């Protein structure tokens, strides 16, 4: 998928493991494992939905 060398990263110090990011991901590219959010970079389309939704500001897009 066209991601222009970008990816979504998570700041674990900010994450409150609430699952809001998973609820808005239409690519099934993330999962909340108890208190641990994992992002599947293969599936992620860097659409920003999770970044915009995260209540804590724990998600960001970075250049790879």
């Amino acid at each position, binding site marked *: 998928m066209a991601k222009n060398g970008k990816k979504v990263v998570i700041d674990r110090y900010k994450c409150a493991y*609430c699952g*809001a990011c998973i*609820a808005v991901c239409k690519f099934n590219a993330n999962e909340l494992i*108890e208190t641990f959010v994992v992002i599947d970079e293969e599936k992620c389309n860097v659409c920003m939905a999770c970044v915009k*939704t995260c209540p*804590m500001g724990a998600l960001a897009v970075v250049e790879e």
Partner: protein
Amino acid sequence: MYDVVVVGAGPAGSMAAKTAAENGLDVLMVEKRQEIGVPVRCAEGVSKAELAEFVEIDKKWIAAEVIGAKIYSPDGSEVILSEEQAGNEVGYILERKIFDRYLARLAAKAGADVIVKTSAVDLIRKDDIVKVKLRKMGEEWEVESKIVIGADGVESRIGKLAGIDTTLKLSEIESCVQYLMNNIDFDPNYTYFWIGNEIAPGGYIWLFPKGENAANVGIGVMPAKAKRKPKEYLDNFIKQKFEYGKIVEIVAGGVPVKGEIKTAVADNVMLAGDAAHHADPITGGGIINAMKAGKYAGIVAAQAIESKNYSAEFLRRYDMLWKNDFGQKLRRNKILQEKILKMDDKTLNKLAKSLAGKNLGEMSVRSIVIALIKANPRLLWDIKDLFY
């Protein structure tokens, strides 16, 4: 082989597991967290009368009782909804950490197996049953079940695995942060709501009492409308209102405000609670609807086992039950929400002023809207039929 695997041990899951087990089914309830009920994602408010329909009230999980609500528009105009005097408490603020465990224990007592720290990671339909792939502490295994009830919250995997599209758009979710605050001053007989496009775009700020000088103070904003993170809006508000409050807990969450979904069933699968977007689009409240849905899912599971029919077609009776109960209210409040989202702060102030000084009595969305329609017939004419 289980009759029912319930995924998620919140109020929806525990009610589903309890009801199914009480009907003689073999039930397994799995919870991905190591502790049921923690961390909460919720302001913990619930209607007293509605809760009493499900469980005997136990003071152990009641943190506070309230007689009404105070709502503030952007310019501070106050609208009060309350019983005339104390002693007529209409709402409870729960201690969800204890409440959720209590419900899970009721499910266990009724005969359901419960395992925690375990995720359901895949569903494989085979003939007319389902293999549920579970993962606990890195180890994976499968259990077979006739029915799966997905009560796995706003981030529901079960819905997606079963082909029910539960992905929320940025205009269909509230992004929430809440602090449990101490050393703050307020009237503990009331819940409080602050609305406005500046303070909480597409949502509101709340205060729900949790005892003497302690309260859940939180915010929900709609990502499609908000310019900043809910935490920033909330911190801003607290700096002005509760400067000396102490924060003893932080929780976050996403609340589905999409309104009624077309169907919460697929072959062998039913969704309940936040997983089925059962939370109210105006208030964000979801506990009672989740408990109702869980109970209905448990009842329909028993009927399906009895009839040996786990098809989506059969399980539509579950859709019928929850839609007949609260589907109309979800539809109505979605329309109201869309109307309110279009209002600027000036309009919100005008509406609040039109009710200032009156006590509207009953604490409900309907009673506010009816009073608003009476005072501002033209502004709300198009939605009046929904509320009368």
